[in-house]
């Protein structure tokens, strides 16, 4: 590997300012360690509006742990968009994401992805992972919240005879239920795994209001390390139930006592509309200012004493580009409201559209 790096350095003397990977990428797009990519190998339809996308990652990917998620970049009409998806494949297997059509980016992924496509990737991350030491587990999932848990089930159940996993999964109807067949087959085949499917269109939602229903579905739930993943409300209710039990505690290390670990995909700060303005946070400078929706963020920052990069002040020179941490901005020239975490924005022609966090 070291020799390879020396060779690369020698080669770059001949092609500077390009790097060897810039040339290699002409032949295969995954040959880039600066921009991690993966090639789609297989697309499997799961339900009418969800698919599993298997991909082969290029250099720089690190193997995922069961339950982790990765940021996936896709191009929509020439523009790169990033979203986070749980990896549904077993740990050790080539990664796969299971995507349900719920917005512009996921919709395109579900409808248009085909083998051979290139996905942009960020290495897997997340703390929603299996406990270090074997323990009886209870998985509570709803809707697409099954995806990280599916990775755990696939990792644990067929390979670890000592595992003890109970899964209670809620979906609207059997047709909408992800991995229905595979879960049933696993439960038939392995005695260490038990699955209960709850179809909410027929029977209503799982009631976390008291412990009665949980008691009925899994009598020893208090002795199990619990994992929950699903919609915001589902998680809030589960958390409330655990908190109401004096002997249990929510959200702590899964390895000690009977605890609940939850995976919450925080939704992006909702962008404001029109001339909203909002609280602007300059994260690195540790400053907060209330800004109106017509003042360029550059002026807002300068007035607050933040050292702002600047140039032409009219949106032509791109000297003021600043990474957006959260929130959305309004382009003062076009009125367009835009912004995704990590996107570089021109502060001289952008105003706050709702709360905005900047990396300055």
């Amino acid at each position, binding site marked *: 590997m070291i020799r390879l790096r020396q060779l690369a350095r020698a080669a770059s*003397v001949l092609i500077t300012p390009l790097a060897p990977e*810039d*040339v290699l990428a002409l032949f295969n797009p995954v040959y880039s360690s600066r921009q991690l990519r993966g090639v789609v190998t297989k697309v499997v339809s799961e339900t009418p509006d969800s698919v599993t996308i298997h991909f082969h990652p290029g250099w720089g990917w690190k193997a995922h742990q069961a339950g982790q998620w990765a940021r996936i970049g896709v191009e929509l009409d*020439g*523009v790169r968009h990033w979203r986070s998806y749980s990896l549904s494949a077993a740990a050790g297997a080539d990664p796969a994401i299971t995507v349900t059509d719920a917005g512009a980016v996921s919709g395109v992924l579900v409808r248009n992805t085909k083998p051979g496509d290139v996905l942009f990737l960020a290495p897997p991350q997340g703390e929603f992972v299996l406990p270090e030491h074997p323990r009886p587990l209870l998985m509570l999932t709803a809707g697409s919240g099954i995806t990280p848990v599916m990775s755990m089930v696939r990792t644990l159940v067929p390979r670890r005879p000592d595992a003890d996993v109970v899964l209670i999964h809620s979906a609207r109807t059997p047709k909408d239920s992800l991995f229905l067949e595979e879960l049933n087959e696993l439960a038939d085949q392995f005695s260490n795994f038990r699955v209960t499917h709850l179809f909410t269109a027929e029977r209503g939602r799982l009631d976390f209001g008291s412990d009665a229903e949980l008691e009925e579905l899994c009598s020893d739930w208090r002795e199990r390390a619990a994992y929950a993943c699903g919609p915001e409300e589902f998680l809030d209710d589960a958390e409330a139930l655990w908190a109401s039990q004096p002997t249990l505690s929510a959200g702590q290390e899964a390895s000690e006592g009977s605890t609940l670990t939850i995976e919450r995909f925080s939704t992006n700060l909702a962008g404001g509309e029109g001339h909203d303005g909002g609280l602007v946070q300059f994260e690195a400078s540790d400053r907060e200012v209330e800004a109106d929706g017509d003042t360029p963020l550059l002026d807002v920052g*300068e007035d607050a004493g933040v050292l702002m990069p600047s140039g032409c002040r*009219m949106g*032509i020179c791109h*000297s003021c580009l600043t990474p957006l941490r959260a929130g959305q901005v309004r382009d003062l020239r076009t009125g367009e409201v835009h912004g995704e975490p990590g996107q570089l924005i021109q502060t001289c022609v952008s105003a706050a559209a709702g709360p905005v966090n900047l990396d300055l």
Partner: protein
Amino acid sequence: MTTLTERTETKPVVTRPGALAATGHPLVRPPAAAHLSDEQIAELGRELDAVRDEVLAKRGATDAAYIRRVIKVQRGLEIAGRASLLVGRNKAAWVAGTAMLSVAKILENMEIGHNVLHGQWDWMRDPDIHSTTWEWDFVTPARSWQHTHNDLHHRWTNVVGKDRDVGYNLLRMDADQPWTPFNLGNPLYNAILAPVFEWGIALYDLEIPEYKEGLKSKEDMSRDLKAVGVKAVKQFTKDYAATPAVAMLTGSGKQALYGTLAANAIRNVWAHAVIFCGHFPEGTDTFTEEMVEGETRGDWYVRQMIGSANISGSKFMHLMTGNLSHQVEHHCFPDLPSNRYAEVAVKVKEICNRYGLPYTTGPLPKQVASTWAKVFKLALPEKGRFSLRQKVTA
């Protein structure tokens, strides 16, 4: 009474340097636009904004595919050209290699580098094709150039005393620049500059006069010197040491060196010619500082249009100039993707005609001849003017 209320309603005086005024007019409107009222200029500004918005609405996958294709072709030519030079003892290989490398360097600097560094492709959010990450095959470091070019030149286009691109601190390119005997060498300096243009720009981007005038700090100067030093060593090593050294394996060391020298010289002469055609041909205006004081967005557009000149020609010619052949459009919309300038040009030209503003364009040989005519003419002091200046300074 109405004037009074209007006055009190106008926004507070803009104090931030460079920001455009929301309403009003510059202290002096450039002569070519003197016939236009404030309302007309504001309307012209809105029309040009609309042209921009129209492109933004259309910009998408086809544009992204375009720049990626150009980059792919350029890298292919670069590798093939350099590889051919490695066996440059063979005459055909040498000619092919030199030609491919020259075209690769021209594409890299003009259609790719210049435009990526303007942020024309930032909207794709591809970190590999982005104004904040791109480095080019040109001696001056991308960051230094972005400062003098994107910020200073594009903001202060052709304002004598503010835009140092008017002559690059070396040539006398405007009659308003005071004549000194040094300027007698104008044609000579320009002829020497052309084949080593990239080194001239690297020197220019150091902003030595600004440093001497105390406008640039010592820290900034040493940072820039270090950056250009590192870059220059890399560029020099690649073309004049590493490539010939590898070519020595086939006994083509000398030929490879001549090849890279030729490719760089061809690129330099071409870039010099194209860039000089942008603002120096007959018909382009220069401006005084009074003409930008209080400038609105509309006035800014006007200055960009009457201060720039296009080059007419084929699609291939536009590509090889990095679409700087659409200098007028580029100056109005420096960060629109270059592949859109051709369609924008039709609208900009129509607007110029309608508002009675000059729209300068011409074939390359004519425009080049025109810039050289200016280089020769301004080597000498103007009659009368010279004596006037003498009197003023006396």
